[in-house]
């Protein structure tokens, strides 16, 4: 089955024996850029309120503007990444539709749905061509109904590293607060872990724990100091978290304003100090200087 032939009505087309030849623009095609360069594969973790979604979303938008295909992955059952990205759709297609119950207590992706197809059908568009895949919003409907979507998301992300059609895609994941997703490998696609931490004890100690939990994985791990107000803050974050600091993002009234308004930071204040710091982080990750600085 050709990639890109999906769309929202696959079963109907299957019955009548034809499919639309048209590929949905901006989803998945023979994207091969930049040639020879490894795409970034990042997961962002940290305490609640540290700024994970803002950092992840801003990085995603910046990279997409530079011509990369970007898949943003929200691992929270109360999704927030789409809002930070400025995505219009509040109701993505329910990912639960991608799985069926294999037997009691176990789920499998439906026949014909692999990670690529799942991204095609269940991700939603955000500005600059970013695609967002969410577990989905289940917070209003009780605990039981979350399971199929959570299972579907878990299986899809574990297929991402081997998904050929997505091999050139940049992937940026946003984990919910707390250690569960980090402890149980909810970012198998990621080779870079960014621990977001404010220069407060709760935030930085949480960062330390996450760094310890993630240390078993073969990912390069860095701290990102957020809400920084003084020159000693980044050093403090580095010391408590126990990781080199890849970026220092200043406390910025524009971030607070965009949070309060529910607007993506890059749209609200494209040249504010926080966005500029995140741009520098993106530069350092793309050209490898973040890694080499950390090695020294």
């Amino acid at each position, binding site marked *: 089955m050709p990639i890109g032939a999906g769309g929202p009505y696959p079963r109907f087309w299957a019955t009548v024996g034809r499919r639309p030849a048209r590929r949905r623009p901006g989803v998945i095609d023979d994207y091969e850029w930049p040639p020879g360069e490894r795409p970034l594969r990042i997961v962002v973790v940290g305490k609640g*309120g540290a700024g994970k*979604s803002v950092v992840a979303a801003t990085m995603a938008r910046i990279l997409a503007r530079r011509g990369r295909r970007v898949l943003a992955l929200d691992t929270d059952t109360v999704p927030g990444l789409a809002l930070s990205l400025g995505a219009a759709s509040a109701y993505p297609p329910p990912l639960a539709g991608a799985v069926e119950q294999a037997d009691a207590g176990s789920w499998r992706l439906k026949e014909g749905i692999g990670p690529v197809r799942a991204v095609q059908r269940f991700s939603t568009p955000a500005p600059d061509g970013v695609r967002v895949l969410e577990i989905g919003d289940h*917070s209003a409907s009780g605990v039981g109904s979350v399971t199929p979507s959570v299972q579907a998301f878990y299986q899809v992300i574990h297929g991402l590293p081997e998904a050929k059609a997505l091999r050139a895609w940049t992937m940026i994941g946003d984990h919910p607060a707390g250690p569960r997703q980090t402890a149980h490998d909810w970012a198998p696609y990621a080779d870079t872990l960014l621990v977001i931490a404010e220069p407060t004890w*709760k935030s930085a100690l949480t960062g330390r724990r996450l760094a310890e939990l993630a240390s078993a994985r073969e990912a390069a791990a860095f701290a990102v100091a957020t809400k920084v107000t003084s020159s000693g803050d980044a050093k403090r974050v580095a010391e408590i978290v126990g990781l080199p600091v890849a970026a220092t993002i200043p406390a910025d009234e524009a971030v607070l304003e965009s949070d309060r308004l529910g607007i993506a930071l890059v749209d609200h204040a494209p040249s504010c100090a926080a966005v500029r710091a995140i741009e520098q982080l993106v530069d350092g990750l793309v050209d490898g200087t973040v890694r080499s600085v950390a090695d020294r």
Partner: protein
Amino acid sequence: MKIAVAGKGGAGKTTVSGTVARHLSRAGHSVLALDADTNPMLGISLGVGPEETYRLLAVRQGLDDGTIEHQQSVEALVEAFGVDAPDGVRLVVALREARADPGCICCGVTPQQLLGELEGEGRTVVCDMEAGVGAIVRAGKADVVLVVVEPSVKSINVGARVVAAAAEAQTEVIVVANRVRGEADLEAIRAELGDCETAVVPEDPVIARADVEGCAPIDIDSGAPGVSALSVLAERLVAQPAQA
């Protein structure tokens, strides 16, 4: 009486839990502060310090490498995984993340079980929940849920969902409007959560300083605006007769 504290990550659940617990204890109540977050940081807001807070976490994790014995009752768990905090509050790290074993009381215990079994003998339990909405569903019947929100769209969204979940469980709700800097902030919160009783906690540099220093805001200045607003909330909580 059982008080559950919920909301989005970073909204201020732990600060509210710790400060309310300290106020209640100072007012003469026997207080058990239950850290039911898998990322347990309540010790910092209670004033036991960052090192002790991290040590308690390590004790809980010690179950994994066999350096700590498993406990067979909830009261033993309070003994083994707790520490005495200032003003006589007993702090207990309730949950553990890795390799949860439903068959073992100290590993498979839920906030619901803990809240159920630890009440009694005139004890007030303040339970700092995990971020998000799911925790409320698992919290069972607390007498009251404090829903902590700050004036951001995401925090208010999460708060509205926690309120809905609590309403479904027929639990009393008090919204704690946190980090309020002015009338506009309060309006933003009231626009979504206006039907709920609301306690207002103003933005307070003392709380911000406590966060940086890793200490309890009440130990810096119990009369600071945010800290004293939480004192009023604590009085309000116990003024009401605990429901059976």
